[in-house]
């Protein structure tokens, strides 16, 4: 499964062809929330822009989200109709193993998911009519690499507290449709 075709240069590749419509829909964001988890299930970042309803406290919410994704990945790997040999249902999957989903839609929101080969999971929740957000997630991952991973003061596996990252993230998300 192939990932980032050719984004080897740093600065210039940070700007993909941004989707048309530069957030002219007012000051509101079209994205609701963003979660970033690492391989062990630690929530590295939770960013909220528009969330009228909160059913659980933050810890439970993160665990529920991670659990849902973990099960959904097992589910899609097993129900995949194009491969004959599939593992058993309960076996934890490596990143990239088996068919993985990239998005699901409900009537009120759309969840876009991306898992990198290192096990970092990015989840972007937007309103229900947005298009395919895989490029947006790749861009956010690039931001993560540039501003978090390359930050010498950041300890991997701990929650992200890099101002530059959150600033650029907010700026980018405002341009999403």
């Amino acid at each position, binding site marked *: 499964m192939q990932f980032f075709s050719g984004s080897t240069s740093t600065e210039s590749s940070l700007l993909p062809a941004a989707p048309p419509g530069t957030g002219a829909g007012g000051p509101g964001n079209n994205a609701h929330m963003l979660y970033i988890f690492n391989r062990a299930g630690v929530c590295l970042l939770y960013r909220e822009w528009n969330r009228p309803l909160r059913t659980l406290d933050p810890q439970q919410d993160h665990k529920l989200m991670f659990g849902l994704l973990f099960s959904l990945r097992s589910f899609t790997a097993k129900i995949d109709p*194009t491969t004959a040999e599939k593992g058993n249902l309960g076996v934890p999957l490596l990143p990239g193993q088996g068919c993985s989903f990239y998005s*699901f839609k409900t*009537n009120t929101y759309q969840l876009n998911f991306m898992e990198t080969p290192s096990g970092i999971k990015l989840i972007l929740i937007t309103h229900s009519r947005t298009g395919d957000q895989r490029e947006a997630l790749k861009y956010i991952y690039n931001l993560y690499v540039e501003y978090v991973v390359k930050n010498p003061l950041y300890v991997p596996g701990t929650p992200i507290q890099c101002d530059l990252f959150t600033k650029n993230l907010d700026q980018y998300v405002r341009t999403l449709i």
Partner: protein
Amino acid sequence: MAAIYSLFIINKSGGLIYYKDYGSAGRMDTNDSLRLASLWHSMHAISQQLSPTTGCNGIDLLRADTFDLHCFQSLTGTKFFVICEPSAPYMELLLKVIYELYTDYVLKNPFYEMEMPIRCELFDLNLSQVVQKDRVALLAR
């Protein structure tokens, strides 16, 4: 109607009551299909909890690399979901048609017990007519 890989029908408690495979590689045995159906039922419920706004009815569409999953939940909690090719058109329509067949040939059958596995010949017959038409197109590639 479009071609699908498989169809699952789940009752309101999450138990699988109907499973039909129309050509996926690697058949699933009964136990696996039961487990997957219950897993889907739970995830459908969890997704409602994670909604940022009120009024969420669960997952309608799941898109993966090699397939799409369309789900329809009736007002009584019975879920119908189909596994199909990515971006297959008219799946929502197909699910509504299957729901109509279900109400006609299963629910109106006086010998059918609610929430039990579906064993109605007429349902199978009509279902295969609705889906079969495009199966040739799927196999031909």
